[in-house]
């Protein structure tokens, strides 16, 4: 029975991918980013931190595909190596926001009452801030480190998960399959985690990939203004910031390539999110 529905889901997913080549391309791009994040440091032609002032600010060429920056570091190597850090920050933050937010939403939506009211108030308070500004404030308060960038990004993404899972859990809290599980003598916690959670998981998965793109943008934005990751570490946001002063003197490649790759990564996650939504929630297909 279960393998039957899995098979059906897979067929549906393959059908959607076949119908929508853009989503398929986005998945391929995602695989490429995953490979770069895993094997990137072993693949790059130059040490991303090795400066060579004799080769400073060279335009893109055969030996330096993306050119070199003001310290003569190879930009291609730095962009590739940065993949792991950028994706790592975003994935860690989203994983944290997903687990805590979904749990809070489940508690609020399934049990209701005071827990729901308190959780709702916390979520509302986070939403009362412009999110990037709140992230700046959190990093300023907690201290300027990569771990705190992750916490800040997780906190500003928390409301999305908490609200979505609360709404979905609330719709289902008296559904037939929940009643059945109750009649079978399952405890409430067991029902919430074992029956309710798997049921809302597909919808949450869509949200994960949509927020991943936003999390990457957010983390890169924070490091662009000098928070979190510090030079000389290779990170897309910092690299764009380092290239910002070169833009007005015409050395476009220093900022362009890290910016383009950052944009592509965000674009890729947004497209995957839209594609996943088509698979999971055909009603909302646009």
């Amino acid at each position, binding site marked *: 029975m279960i393998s039957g529905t899995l098979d059906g889901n897979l067929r549906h997913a393959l059908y959607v991918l076949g119908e929508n080549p853009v989503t398929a391309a986005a998945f391929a791009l995602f695989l490429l980013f995953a490979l770069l994040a895993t094997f990137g440091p072993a693949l790059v032609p130059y040490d991303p931190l090795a400066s060579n002032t004799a080769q400073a600010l060279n335009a893109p060429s055969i030996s330096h595909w993306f050119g070199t920056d003001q310290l003569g570091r190879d930009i291609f190597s730095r962009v590739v190596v940065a993949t792991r850090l950028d994706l790592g920050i975003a994935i860690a933050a989203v994983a944290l926001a997903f687990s805590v937010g979904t749990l809070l939403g489940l508690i609020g939506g399934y049990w209701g009452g005071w827990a729901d009211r308190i959780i709702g108030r916390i979520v509302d308070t986070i939403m009362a801030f412009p999110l990037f500004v709140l992230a700046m404030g959190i990093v*300023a308060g907690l201290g300027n480190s990569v771990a705190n960038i992750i916490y800040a990004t997780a906190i500003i993404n928390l409301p999305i998960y908490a609200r979505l899972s609360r709404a979905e859990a609330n719709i289902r809290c008296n559904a037939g399959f929940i009643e059945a599980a109750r009649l079978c003598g399952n405890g409430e916690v067991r029902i919430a985690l074992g029956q309710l959670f798997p049921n809302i998981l597909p919808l949450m998965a869509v949200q994960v990939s949509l927020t991943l793109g936003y999390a990457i943008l957010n983390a890169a934005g924070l490091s662009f203004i000098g928070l979190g990751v510090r030079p000389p570490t290779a990170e897309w946001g910092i690299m764009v910031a380092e290239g910002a002063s070169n833009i007005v003197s015409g050395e476009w490649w220093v900022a362009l390539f890290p910016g383009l790759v950052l944009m592509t990564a965000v674009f890729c996650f947004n497209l995957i999110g839209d594609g996943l939504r088509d698979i999971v929630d055909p009603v909302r297909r646009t």
Partner: protein
Amino acid sequence: MPVLRRLLIALPSVMGVIVVTFLLTRALPGDPAIYFAGPAATQQAIAEIRHAMGFDRSLPAQFVDYVRHLSRGDLGTSLTTGQPVLSELAARLPASAELTLTALVLSVGIALPLGIVAALRPGSPVDHVCRIITTAGVSLPTFFTGLLLVYLFYYLAGVAPAPLGRLDTFSTPPPHYSGFYLVDSLIAGDFVTFRAALGQLLLPSATMAIFSLAPLARITRASMLAALGSEFIRTARASGLGRRRVVCVYALRNALLPVITTLGMVFSFMLGANVLVEKVFAWPGLGSYAVDALIASDYAPVQGFVLAMALLYVMLNLMIDLIYCLLDPRVRLDA
């Protein structure tokens, strides 16, 4: 009074914002007293500073103190400039407001017609352009778009001025009336300054508009499509009403409601994007003030900035609700 009731609903948000900004300053790991005392301070000096700043008292007592200072408009003093944070924020607010409002006008002015035309002709080239813009727009890092525009229009084309603040070095700021250079220069009748200020303003506001018009165009297209497909439009058409009247009055007025709701999210984006855009264009607004303070680990301005932005955002959301109420008489504010 429904409006008063809506104002009361905003109060818990304001309280929440104040509590969070307080917690960010006081209850977090790390001792600000050690920081304020400097690296060479003795144990006794640190204890004295801690006492002077009230850090040795209980958290609720500190909170009462914090709120009392806030109610007097005291946001503390910047360590780097030695000025009260409130007056510095007030001095820089017009620069940010001028930039953000121009960007908002630009993005609404482009997103609404684009979304409407795309919805009127689904599958047409305009619709495809709309779809590309809405998908790509949200993926663009604002700081990167800004640099790209600077490269294209300043370095390559040479039509834009250098990205160095609100006025180039040859112009003098207009006399201060509103703080908005565009308005002030017009009041003074100084069209040279007006043109210079407009030139400086164009690229940063375009950068912000590109980012914020994507969600607006997307929701305009979707809600316009829904409205055009509904039965009251069919009835209006069948009654022989003109196309312009059907689209602009009947469909648009209904389609605008979700757009107004999305504006709330767009404001959240814009207030954040402000920080990045101001850094790219050396714009002397609130965002660059906060970034400078962050780099110098100067906490009072950062906290003041976060608090001011959050209060501004609560107010904007309040305004959105009121506009929504004006547009849709069915909505009751207390619902």
